[in-house]
């Protein structure tokens, strides 16, 4: 097989950060090439260079042996490169067919040919094994998995030879992941190359052919066998250290520890019903369930970001006013939401402003802020949490996902909150930073914080939580200690709802 894509010595600098520092990548036609690396290793930047969104400062790109300049996204598309991003770039109001052909609608004399577009969209969807997605439906009404299929269909409609998939499985359930893999195998059988980015090593083993490992903006290993390379070796390459991927040891929760958070009969019609659980000081309660089972909705309702139809939330026995975030924050509740960028961060503001935003009162007298005190308090936290790059003046936008998550956690640490609601705390966070975040969560609970954890990774819920609430279609189907249940039983519960 010859190389479809060759990238050599790619360098890309941003103000203050050398994001790529000599990256080499070669991708062959018909292979699934996995890109591994910690957050901040440069994967996302590399993808943006490849798709023409960023121009490299140095290095060469050649496609089929021909040196090319990808100086705009359009140029990349014309060369047959398409990308499916973590945050899907679809227009929710437009139909499936319109999204697939966005920018190259079948037309004659400037009039779009809608029937042709619909028919061709159907063809492509069927080719992907998803003929059941109606081409005329608006994309916004599709579930995440369906939207991803539409993204893929869009790439195919442009006759892409190389499709980049940035964490495509992050929003998918196990069953949908299996389906995704079927689609990918169909693509590679046709000679399409796939660059696959994921933090889940077992997926890489399943679907990948070769692996390239990035670290600190440079290629540290390339052409590794995706199936035969031992996990320890991959982690060593990514981190420069040899660690086991473990959860910190669980502590004994005293039954005398006071109940901090009480959730009773919480209901929002169409989302979830009759949810109730309690969390003691120092306890971690995990909510497990599929996407759409109501996990995030429960968390946001506890926080007051959504208003409960019935039911109550009490902190230290005092009921919170429903639908009021301020009430929850004032009572000592903090939320690290699922969508960090759109729900938690002020991307263009400095790190320290993002940290102090919920505790401004502490740094103000008579409404005037003490900037120095703010910076000092924030710097103390960023040092303790090892946020990189160090320095509290950087806009949060320049930080990697794992470091952005640490900034969000620092915000609630600064408030010394009593209840912490964590929604997918390790989404888009690499293995190394993950164990740091796990340890951080455990340390918080050891200090008496009551924690509610939502994660789509069952292993994470079982590994971290003391007790588990399993949700299926908006109802709690199981509540019990985490030690008494294993991954298979949880999966069985969330998917089938059969008895343990």
């Amino acid at each position: 097989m010859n190389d479809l894509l060759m990238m050599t010595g790619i360098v890309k600098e941003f103000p203050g950060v050398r994001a790529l520092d000599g990256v080499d990548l070669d991708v062959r036609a018909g292979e699934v090439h996995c890109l591994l690396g910690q957050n901040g290793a440069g994967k996302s930047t590399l993808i943006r260079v490849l798709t023409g969104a960023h121009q490299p400062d140095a290095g060469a790109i050649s496609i089929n042996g021909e040196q090319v300049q990808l100086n705009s996204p359009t140029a990349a598309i014309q060369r047959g490169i398409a990308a499916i991003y973590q945050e899907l770039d679809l227009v929710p109001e437009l139909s499936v067919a319109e999204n697939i052909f966005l920018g190259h609608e079948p037309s004659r004399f400037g009039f779009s040919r809608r029937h042709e577009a619909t028919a061709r969209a159907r063809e492509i969807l069927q080719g992907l094994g998803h003929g059941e997605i109606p081409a005329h439906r608006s994309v916004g009404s599709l579930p995440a998995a369906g939207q991803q299929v539409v993204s893929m269909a869009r790439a195919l409609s442009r006759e892409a030879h190389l499709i980049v998939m940035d964490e495509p499985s992050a929003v998918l359930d196990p069953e949908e992941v299996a389906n995704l893999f079927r689609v990918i195998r169909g693509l590679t059988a046709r000679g399409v190359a796939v660059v696959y980015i994921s933090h889940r090593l077992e997926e890489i083993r399943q679907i990948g052919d070769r692996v390239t490992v990035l670290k600190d903006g440079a290629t540290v290993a390339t052409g590794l066998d995706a199936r035969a390379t031992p996990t320890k070796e991959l982690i060593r390459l990514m981190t420069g250290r040899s660690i086991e991927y473990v959860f910190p040891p669980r502590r004994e929760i005293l039954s005398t520890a006071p109940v901090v958070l009480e959730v009773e009969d919480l209901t929002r019609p169409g989302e979830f019903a009759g949810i109730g659980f309690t969390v003691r000081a120092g306890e971690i309660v995990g909510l497990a369930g599929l996407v759409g089972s109501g996990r995030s909705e429960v968390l946001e309702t506890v926080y007051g970001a959504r208003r409960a139809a019935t039911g109550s939330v009490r902190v230290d026995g005092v009921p919170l006013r429903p639908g009021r975030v301020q009430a929850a924050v004032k009572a000592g509740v903090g939320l690290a939401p699922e969508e960090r960028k759109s729900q938690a961060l002020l991307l263009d503001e400095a790190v320290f402003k993002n940290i102090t935003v919920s505790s401004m009162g502490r740094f103000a007298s008579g409404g005037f802020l003490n900037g120095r005190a703010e910076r000092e308090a924030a710097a103390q936290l960023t040092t303790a949490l090892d946020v990189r790059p160090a320095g509290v003046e950087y806009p949060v936008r320049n930080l990697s996902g794992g470091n952005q998550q640490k900034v969000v956690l620092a915000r609630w640490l600064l408030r010394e909150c009593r209840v912490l609601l964590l929604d997918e705390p390790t989404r888009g966070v690499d293995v190394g930073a993950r164990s740091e975040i796990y340890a951080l969560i455990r340390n918080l609970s050891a200090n008496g914080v009551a924690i509610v954890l939502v994660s789509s990774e069952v292993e994470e819920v079982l590994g971290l939580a003391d007790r588990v609430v399993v949700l299926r279609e908006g109802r709690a189907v199981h509540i019990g200690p985490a030690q008494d249940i294993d991954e298979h039983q949880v999966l069985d519960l969330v998917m089938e709802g059969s008895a343990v």
Partner: protein
Amino acid sequence: MTVEDGARPPEQTASTQATVTPPAAQRSTGLMHSGVGRNLGLVVALVLLCIVGVITAGHTFATGANVLTILRLAAVIGVVSIGMTFVITGGGIDLSVGAMVALASVWATTLATQQLASDLHWIFMVTTALVVGAACGLVNGLLIAYGKVVPFIATLAMLAAARGLAEIISDRKTQIITVNSFVDFFGGSLLGVPVLVWIFLLVAAAGWVLLNRTTFGRRTFAVGGNSEAARLAGIKVQRHTVALYVLAGLCCGIAAVMLMARTTTGSSTHGQLYELDAIAAVVIGGTLLSGGRGTIVGTVFGVLIFTTLNNVFTLNNLSISAQSVAKGAIIVIAVLLQQRLAARATSQ
């Protein structure tokens, strides 16, 4: 819980995740974002305008009296623009500023109000104007924050309604101010500088402090930059939005007082197209129309540039229409330049 206990990273030494920047690079980015670097273009534009003024009408342009005239003219729209800066930084827009100025000026110059003022003190006229402005702003804010009406529509409705109300109250007649103490105070000078200019300076200084040094300002940036994140961080986004529009209305009340002093009248035609002048000044000053970024210093420069431009054109006997064309061109050039500079600053 102490920070050290709660936040100690796990025992393994963390890997370097991104190249750590040397402190020097950090300082230089700081300078780019400092007031000097950001406003350099505006200073240059203003200086260029002055040079044109000196060349074309040197004998009348470069006099102390003319400079004071420019400042006096800049003062009224300047105060309105400071309020507008807050609203736009907070992610909104206020199209009703001109109408609010008109309504406040009319309400503060009714026979009843003037009678009260001449009997007791001119402060009653001032209070009336401020209360009327703030009340209109309150209506705007409540509609937008709690009624979920988009700012463009809510303030467009206020634009129509407030000016209409001003016409009803004044019966479309210009109301002459007969309270001499009012005119004497606001029309006078302090240390050789007109009181109106002092007011503008005070409002601008207070605005700068409020935006850059207080929790109110920080919340404004947060709400304008990402209102959902601000809400989930525990900021009272709705209440803050109301406060922003009240602030804009209050600025319009102040501007109405200043305009009343300058023209010695209250009229439903006061403040025509102030909304456009104010938005233009704010935007060329460097405040982001989509919210989240705002600068009071930039707004002051924006106002001065437009006022100086008008002055130079007037001194050269050029028509108002020609001024408008030049104004349009300046807005476009300024925004284009700023986009280039911003792009260079982020991608260097």
